């Protein structure tokens, strides 16, 4: 998964200069192939997105003419698309994306925190069992997990039949915001639980006991001690679910496939894979990357600050 690593590296000092007395330069040879790979297949492609977003469109064939030289960049399409996001066709999509993700992230936290907390506080065999069961979804393909919900939610599916017992006849799989949000939560919750569990597991529980000894009620101790101490884990977990949710389009496609629930990712998929307007797709990728970079920056800063407090 392309996700930030919430764990801080191990404890041993790494920078022992003597490292087998080989000159440092020689080690760069080992790093070279991988670095070259990432330069060619990661850095250049990201630049290509910008070159296409700020390039031109061939007037006859409608294919993209990338502007590799930044001095030749044109910003007309970029401004166009931004305008549409602020007050135009794409505004609904943008608002919906933010709304779905915020609700889904909040639900994920509401579900994930108690689970991570219980896991961190349990012990022995029970703990191993719960840990295995919580890790299990990681090994079940995401698409399989979505397929499972399609089977349950389709017209003659178990959930639909169950709700119709109460007279609720709802077409869950056609533009239902609830189904899409549920899909996002279902898909990504495990990514929030694990880092949160890791933080809660290492938490200094003596501080919570001290708070209790000093007269705090269990509730006060939880909100005033446990929650603030678990903040790095919460931040990491939120990042881990918010990043992929913002760029998700297939959950939406599978559970809804309706313009009424379309998100930013669906637009990118449409422009790039339908192959009609790669330039607009590239602009949207830039917009998405910018939003995600802001989030990542917030996370890094927040993390640094909570390290300081310690």
């Amino acid at each position, binding site marked *: 998964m392309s996700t930030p690593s919430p764990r801080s590296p191990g404890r041993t000092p790494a920078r*022992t200069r003597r490292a087998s007395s080989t000159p440092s330069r020689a080690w760069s040879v080992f790093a070279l192939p991988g670095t070259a*790979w990432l330069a060619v*297949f990661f850095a250049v492609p990201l630049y290509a997105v910008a070159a296409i977003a700020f390039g031109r469109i061939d007037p006859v064939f409608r294919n993209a003419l990338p502007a590799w030289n930044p001095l030749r960049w044109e910003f007309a399409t970029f401004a166009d698309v931004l305008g549409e996001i602020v007050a135009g066709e794409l505004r609904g999509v943008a608002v919906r994306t933010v709304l779905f993700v915020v609700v889904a992230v909040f639900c994920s936290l509401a*579900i994930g925190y*108690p689970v991570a907390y219980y896991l961190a506080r349990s012990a022995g065999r029970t703990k191993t069992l719960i840990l295995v069961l919580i890790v299990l979804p990681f*090994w079940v393909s995401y698409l399989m997990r979505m397929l499972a919900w399609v089977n349950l939610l389709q017209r003659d599916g178990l959930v639909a039949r169950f709700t119709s017992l109460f007279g609720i006849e709802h077409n869950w799989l056609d533009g239902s915001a609830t189904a899409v949000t549920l899909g996002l939560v279902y898909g990504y919750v495990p990514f929030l639980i694990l880092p949160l569990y890791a933080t809660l597991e290492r938490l200094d529980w003596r501080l919570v006991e001290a708070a209790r000894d000093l007269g705090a009620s269990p509730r006060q101790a939880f909100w005033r001690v446990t929650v603030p101490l678990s903040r790095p884990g919460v931040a990491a977990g939120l990042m881990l679910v918010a990043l992929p949710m913002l760029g998700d389009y297939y959950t939406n496609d599978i559970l809804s496939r309706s313009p009424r629930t379309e998100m930013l990712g669906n637009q990118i998929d449409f422009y790039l894979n339908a192959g009609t307007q790669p330039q607009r797709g590239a602009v949207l990728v830039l917009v998405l990357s910018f939003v995600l970079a802001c989030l990542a920056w917030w996370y890094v800063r927040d993390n640094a600050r909570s390290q300081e407090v310690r």
Partner: protein
Amino acid sequence: MRRSARSLAAFTWAYIAWSLVPVAIAILFSFNSGRSRSVWQGFSLRWWTGDPNASLLRDESMRTVAVNSVVLALATLVITLPLGTAMAVGLQRWRGHGSGAASTLAAAPLVTPELVLGAALLLVFTNLYAAVPLGRPAQVLGHVTLNLSLVVVTVRARLLTIGSSYEEAARDLGATRSEALRFVLVPLLRPAIVAAGVVVFATSIDDFIVSSFLGSGAGSETVPVRIYGAVRGASTPALNALATLLVMISFVGLLAGGAILFALRRRNGERVTLREFVSEVTQADA
């Protein structure tokens, strides 16, 4: 306090049920004897092996798709592990001009969402690297890029805990540099490499976005891409069987990795617990 602990336990078990039961039902329905994926009509192996045309075993297109997924994951594994391990060792010890930038480059894909990576690769393959055809070649390149950083991070974490004293001891005892590397460092790194390999295999086999963006037509279709395309259509339970097979393959990868890890530890006379293994693999995953 007791009561809140009990409700917490109930909540956790409810969550676990919620997260697993739908998948269990989907697996169950691959054994349905009728055409429905949501109404149970009795147990049969029709969609696995029985049906002469539409079962997983007999439908050639389904077999192709499954083979595509496995080939892609194995190719990714074979390229990513050596490339990533070497990069981790290099980055850990190389100080000087360019090392900081290389480290940043190695970490950046971890915070890049897959959609951005997939879109960027699609655009670069169609506009600049015209020599690389969309389809399996592009998919392999994409999957390696997707997974490389993960190997680097996992192996570097292990390098940090190992330190350099073992290698120095070997050098003091007369080993050459490359001998110290081959006979001391690499064996010490093996558990981390195996754990990373397990996660790379699983990530690659489950991947949808990159496979889909860089695929072209039926020849390079993978299982997740097929599920995505067919799940809302009038598919038979054979699709559930295909999805179940995918889950089984990813568990085979996990078990194989686990077996190797156990064997390695056993040889060193260490004991491994299940929880240790789980946390080793999930750490590489997170």
